[in-house]
């Protein structure tokens, strides 16, 4: 066990985490040059394209130290985005140490700080790495000061590297062995293994990525999941060297995989603890939390005939994404679809993009919502995330909504704008922390439901791209939420209804009405579009009746072509959704909802 190191890399997005991982993997010769590609640990196309990590992964690196000793370095790769901080937490549980990467030119960022706290919470030993020292804008001295002041770490321990050029990589490997602790655990004790992620393989079923805390596990062992209660028999164990390499057994301190004939990731909970069925551990690994959806949205196929394909695609995605929840939903305007739960907006984006890209299904996604807690006058408390289920306001005694604590890092000159922005997003309180000269952290408690509506995009605008944003959900607070319905020609269109704070209801309703008025083509009659709360109209726009839909000339030579044109007009009409007397093109739904999130 003295020769094992389990560690992860903590970095702000773009600070070079994946590149550093790539270099460490190459330096240890874990992958042949032929097999190597950039961002080697990110296997999904969308991860590689966006340069983000969505799923955790692990790789075992053999390392021969300068003193001739052989080490097993287990690098656990974690997602970088706030949406996936749940996955980050799980992965940290599997580690004993962490490399904290700071960009030599940009310095410490909000997310670095947030993840640092997570790492400290998990009692990880930390090794600061200053990356991108090759850049002309690198300011190593300033970063060292930030490491000292903002992170509270020993600046003298920091290792300067350039993951791009490879400078300092051997120092990092040496540092991992020398500065990070070896795992603790009892190989002879009852099995206690933490599942920190799961992948689905078409041929082998679910592959569990585990950290063995105590005991050993080998093929043939009957195992028990301590939280879910399911029992399985181990088929194979091994370590991940980018390929799954079977081993005789895994024992305390090691990181590896277990295959146990599990058919879907739905059957297991990531974060669960595996123990031996006949010799169970006294208690599971602490820190288990169920992934919770915080953002909800309905997804409909653009073409109603594709409902079945959408259902199958979601099933397939969910096999590998335990945090995606979905249930059947139906809209009078858009037909059958699914109400889905996501970890955050990026998660929603990723799922939507994968559905469209990997399954080629055109989608309409309804306005995202948070989950409100509604106290009814009869004493019941219900949770509502779907405007369709919003109770009659007469029955409502009170509503609470989820709040987050946002940590925004910004250059000092934009503090005023950031504060204004927070207030615009119904921030309850703002606090300023001066991190170092020129950099301020704004800590703000605000409703998650507000942040969904492009807070991040606007933050980037007001800080000219320099602001960064991270959040944790904190609690539920009193709020005044109303359901706004959109009526088109007097008919409510369910897929356009949304839940919103009363103060924001009018502005958004107006936005909806205006967008729809632009996207819906003129009809033979005037079409009023109204935003309504209860029976009260709060916003309105009108699509004028078209005045002209006639061809000026139609003589002997025009007849054949004229018929074809009418045929085309008819087909175009058939592609639209009919709501009452009004034909609504799909692009109207998309434009309104897309513009809403932008």
């Amino acid at each position, binding site marked *: 066990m003295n020769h094992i190191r389990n560690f992860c890399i903590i970095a702000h997005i773009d600070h070079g985490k994946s590149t550093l991982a790539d270099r460490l993997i190459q330096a240890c010769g874990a992958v042949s040059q032929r097999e190597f590609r950039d961002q080697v640990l990110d296997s999904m196309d969308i991860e590689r394209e966006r340069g983000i990590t969505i799923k955790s992964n692990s790789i075992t690196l053999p390392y021969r130290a300068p003193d001739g000793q052989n080490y097993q370095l287990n690098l656990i790769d974690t997602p970088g985005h706030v949406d996936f901080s749940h996955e980050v937490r799980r992965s940290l549980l599997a580690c004993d140490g962490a490399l904290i990467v700071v960009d030599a030119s940009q310095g410490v960022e909000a997310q670095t700080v947030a993840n640092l706290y997570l790492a400290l919470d998990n009692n990880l030993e930390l090794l600061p790495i200053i990356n991108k020292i090759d850049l002309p804008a690198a300011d190593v001295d300033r970063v060292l000061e930030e490491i000292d002041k903002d992170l509270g770490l020993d600046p003298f321990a920091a290792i300067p590297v350039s993951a791009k050029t490879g400078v300092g990589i051997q120092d990092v490997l040496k540092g991992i062995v020398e500065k990070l602790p070896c795992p603790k655990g009892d190989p002879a004790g009852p099995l206690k293994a933490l599942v920190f992620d799961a992948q689905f393989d078409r041929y082998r079923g679910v592959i569990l990525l585990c950290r063995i805390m105590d005991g050993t596990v080998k093929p043939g062992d009957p195992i028990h999941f301590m939280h879910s209660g399911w029992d399985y028999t181990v088929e194979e164990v091994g370590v991940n060297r980018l390929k799954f390499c079977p081993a005789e057994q895994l024992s305390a301190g090691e990181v590896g995989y277990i295959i146990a004939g599990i058919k879907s990731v739905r059957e297991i909970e990531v974060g669960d603890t595996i123990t031996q069925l006949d010799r169970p551990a006294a208690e599971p690994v602490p820190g288990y939390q169920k992934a919770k959806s915080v953002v909800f949205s309905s997804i409909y196929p653009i073409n109603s005939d594709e409902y079945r394909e959408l259902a199958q695609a979601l099933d397939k995605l969910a096999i590998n994404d335990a945090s995606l929840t979905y249930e059947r939903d139906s809209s009078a305007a858009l037909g059958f679809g699914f109400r889905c739960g996501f970890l955050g907006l990026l998660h929603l984006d990723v799922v939507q993009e994968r559905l469209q890209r990997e399954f080629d299904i055109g989608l309409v996604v309804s306005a995202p919502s948070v989950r409100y807690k509604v106290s009814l006058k009869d004493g019941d408390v219900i949770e509502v995330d779907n405007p369709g289920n919003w109770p009659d306001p007469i029955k409502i005694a009170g509503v609470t909504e989820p709040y987050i604590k946002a940590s925004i890092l910004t250059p000092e000159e934009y503090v005023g704008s950031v504060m204004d922005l927070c207030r615009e997003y119904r921030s309850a309180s703002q606090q300023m922390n001066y991190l170092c000269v020129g950099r301020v952290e704004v800590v703000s408690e605000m409703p998650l439901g507000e942040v969904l509506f492009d807070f991040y995009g606007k933050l980037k605008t007001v800080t000219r791209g320099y602001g960064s944003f991270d959040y944790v959900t904190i609690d539920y607070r009193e709020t005044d939420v109303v359901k706004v319905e959109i009526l088109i020609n007097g008919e409510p269109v369910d897929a356009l209804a949304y839940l919103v704070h009363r103060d924001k209801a009018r502005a958004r309703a107006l936005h909806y009405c205006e967008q729809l008025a632009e996207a819906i083509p003129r009809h033979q*009659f005037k079409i009023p579009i109204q935003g309504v709360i209860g029976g009260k109209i709060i916003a309105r726009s009108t699509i004028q009746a078209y005045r002209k839909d*006639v061809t*000026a000339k139609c003589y002997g*030579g025009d007849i054949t072509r004229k*018929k074809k044109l*009418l045929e085309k*007009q008819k087909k175009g009409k058939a592609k639209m959704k009919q709501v009452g007397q009004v034909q609504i093109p799909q692009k109207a739904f998309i434009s309104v909802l897309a513009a809403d999130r932008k």
Partner: protein
Amino acid sequence: MHSTLPKPIGLYVHLPFCVRKCAYCDFASYAGRQADIPRYVDAVVQEITRRGAETGHPSADTIFLGGGTPSLLDEFQITRILDALFDAFPIEQNAEITCECNPGTLTPPFAQALRQAGVNRLSLGAQAAQTRLLRLLGRIHDWEQVIASVEIARQAGFENINLDLMFGLPSQTVSDFRETLAAAMALCPTHVSCYGLIVEEGTPICREVTAGKLVLPNEEVERDMYEFARQTFAEHGLQQYEISNFAREGYACRHNIGCWTRVRYLGFGCAAHSFFDQCRTMNPPQLDAYLAGEEPKTEQISKDEARFESMMLGLRMTRGVKDEDFTRMHGLSIRDAFGAKLDKPINAGLLEWHEGALRLTRLGMDLQNSVLVDLM
């Protein structure tokens, strides 16, 4: 029964030559190909003779020489074509024989030759009274030449004169259009065709509009112009009988009415269409393909399609589609053919029954396409 007696047919000859192609034109027309006129006339005369024999020399009561610019032909060429038509088809005594002319190309000898060859109706592409708008359309003439052409026509003995006018033109104002209408009315035409500009894809004007270099009047202004035209014409005794056509009593264009009532017609020349034996036929649209003797394309019209055509064409006329005529042609009544599809446009106030005919209302006149889509 009358129904067994076939109506006299219509004859159309397409003459695709132009001095210059108009900016809005997506017709088969060619500038700078005048050298090919003699060959073309030969080919058309041959086609007329051949088709006359093939169709058994049906009698005709309308002839329409359209273009392009028929007045680019010389007197002998145009006379040869008309003679060929008279030879191949028995032409009724009181036949309506129209020739399109462009102002600036009509000469007194040509007008006289037309008259002598039997032409009794002239159609002049006047379009607009403002030289600015005419240039923008790519027209070569100005209004002075319109006045001169009308004078030449009258001198040659033409009494039935049509003026083509356009509205909804880029940069055209309502007062421009008033001026055009006043100038046109001053010439006392027996017939006016007044068209809202159609921006056809691929035309120079379409490119300029797409690029934002030309700005069209909005739908409201365009329809105001249309309404204003209707009223002006009515005040001058020109009754509307079709979406874009207005005439003095007795001067409605019989050739075009034939087309809207699905009377058979034969077309000659490149891009010319025919409707005969329940088939719609189109000659090769390219001049060279036509000269090379390429075969026309033929499409059989199904019963359903035929019924729809009756509506598509017949509803263009203010008198609408007589149920009696429809039943005679298709063997079932309009209600039997369209059933519940009629309800929506009728309830929307776009279609109405009037003295045994189904016709568009005034509002329906602006929205004919949507009515037709409902009937498909």
